[in-house]
């Protein structure tokens, strides 16, 4: 969780893609996943996700994300399989249609969730925001919101950890194995966390303002984000994914 949005430096093909291309690729995968109703194609899309992770040189992270999604996926699969009432029963109350449907839902979930996390792992958030401002002309305010939100995820977790450690030192059993009990203990932490975050965001606003936040325009960025040759195959892949989804 701590490293969920953490940038992994590198020089792979995926790293070098224009940030906009990466976003388009993410969107294309999502659109394709929702357009198609074919289980095999969904599995192929999962293959595309994994391939992106491997080309980007972050196989460990890719598997980590997959593992993280597995729990939710399993839960969703069981729910879907049990609740579908159509088709012929395979065993107990589970039907073949139910299994098929559950498989699709789960695959779709995994396929859609993976690329965004992967893109954030191989793109600096600032590059993403700057490219959005420069190329797509997204107003800087929104881009800033995005970067700041992502920037403060590790900060937030660090603070949460600090509070928990402070509480543990005073005898509160955060290291309990009972997750329900743990959840009950974490909830009261939300108030101090929220208060300190609000205070912090106020400070960040001042810090941004005294460094010229209001002067920033779409051409302020020092780095430029031109589309290069390597963006072409990625664009073709996007088109192919959507066309295939429409055909199958």
């Amino acid at each position: 969780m701590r490293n969920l949005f953490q940038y992994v430096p590198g020089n792979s093909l995926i790293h070098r893609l224009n940030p906009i291309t990466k976003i388009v690729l993410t969107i294309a995968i999502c659109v394709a996943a929702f357009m198609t109703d074919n289980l095999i194609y969904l599995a192929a899309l999962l293959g595309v996700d994994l391939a992106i992770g491997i080309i980007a040189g972050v196989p460990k992270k890719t598997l980590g994300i997959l593992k993280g999604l597995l729990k939710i996926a399993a839960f969703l699969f069981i729910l879907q399989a049990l609740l579908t009432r159509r088709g012929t029963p395979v065993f107990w109350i589970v039907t073949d249609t139910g299994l098929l449907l559950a498989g699709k839902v789960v695959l779709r979930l995994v396929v859609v969730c993976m690329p965004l996390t992967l893109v954030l792992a191989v793109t600096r958030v600032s590059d993403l925001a700057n490219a959005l401002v420069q190329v797509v002309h997204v107003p800087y305010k929104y881009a800033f919101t995005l970067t700041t939100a992502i920037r403060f995820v590790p900060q937030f977790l660090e603070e949460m950890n600090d509070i928990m450690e402070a509480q543990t030192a005073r005898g509160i059993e955060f290291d309990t194995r009972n997750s329900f009990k743990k959840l009950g203990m974490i909830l009261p932490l939300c108030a101090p966390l929220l208060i300190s975050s609000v205070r912090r965001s106020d400070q960040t606003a001042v810090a941004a303002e005294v460094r010229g936040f209001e002067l920033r325009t779409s051409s302020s960025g020092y780095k430029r984000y031109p589309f290069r040759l390597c963006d072409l195959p990625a664009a073709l892949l996007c088109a192919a994914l959507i066309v295939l989804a429409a055909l199958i």
Partner: protein
Amino acid sequence: MIDIQALTFTYKDETAPALENITLSVPEGGFLGIIGPAGAGKTTLARAIGGIVPHHYPGDYYGSVKVDGLDTIDNRLTDLSRIVGTVFQDVDSQIISSVVEDELLYGMENFGIPHDEIPRRMEFALKQVGIESLRERTIASLSGGQRQKVAIASVIALRPKVLVLDEPTGELDPASSRQIFTLLKTLNEEYGITVVIIEQKIMLLCEFARQLMVLDHGRIFVKGDTREVLSHAEELEALGVNCPRVAYLSRLLEKETRETLPVCVSIEEAEAMVRGLMK
């Protein structure tokens, strides 16, 4: 460069003023150190010089603050920040980007520093603070001290005329603290940047600052040239501000010898004085 006339400021929803009747003048190229117990109004004063008080923190404001001839009330915070660079006390909340390099770029991009000059300034700032090796690192992976250096570098890269630092060495080890002070001295002497620094490490202040101001309960307790302020060692002690031992030594020797002796601010000076007396 900084001209404060009878400044009194009370934060909104507070009854006691955070600053009361502060009159202060720092010449261009000055180096002012501010010290005082917690709650003395040091941070508020730093905010007032940068215009953050009252632009961002509203309240009752009397008197005037002029920086480089601009009244902080009449000018926008953005325009004021072209002149005054501020390093805040809370390091974590002032870093905006996720990567060190981007953090330095942020201000330079916004203030429209010509793009061909940016690499030079970037290297200068990183080198001066001694964090060249951290350029590509993410902020989350840095220690508190390293973050503090990043915050300082990001302001230095902007080359402001006035640099206001609120306890910039709070998380730094003694060697790094000295390094920062040495850097401030260079910026002050070679580039003519006016430095205002709030600091608890009195020894460093005495060595580097030319002017000292002691605040207590929002009022000026004593201000003046560093040596002059240090001659009030006993009053400062009563306030809870420790003076360097060498300054005490001069006071003690003065009592002992019944001679008027200069106040020492460094060990070398004290050594010379003691040798002189022993002859």
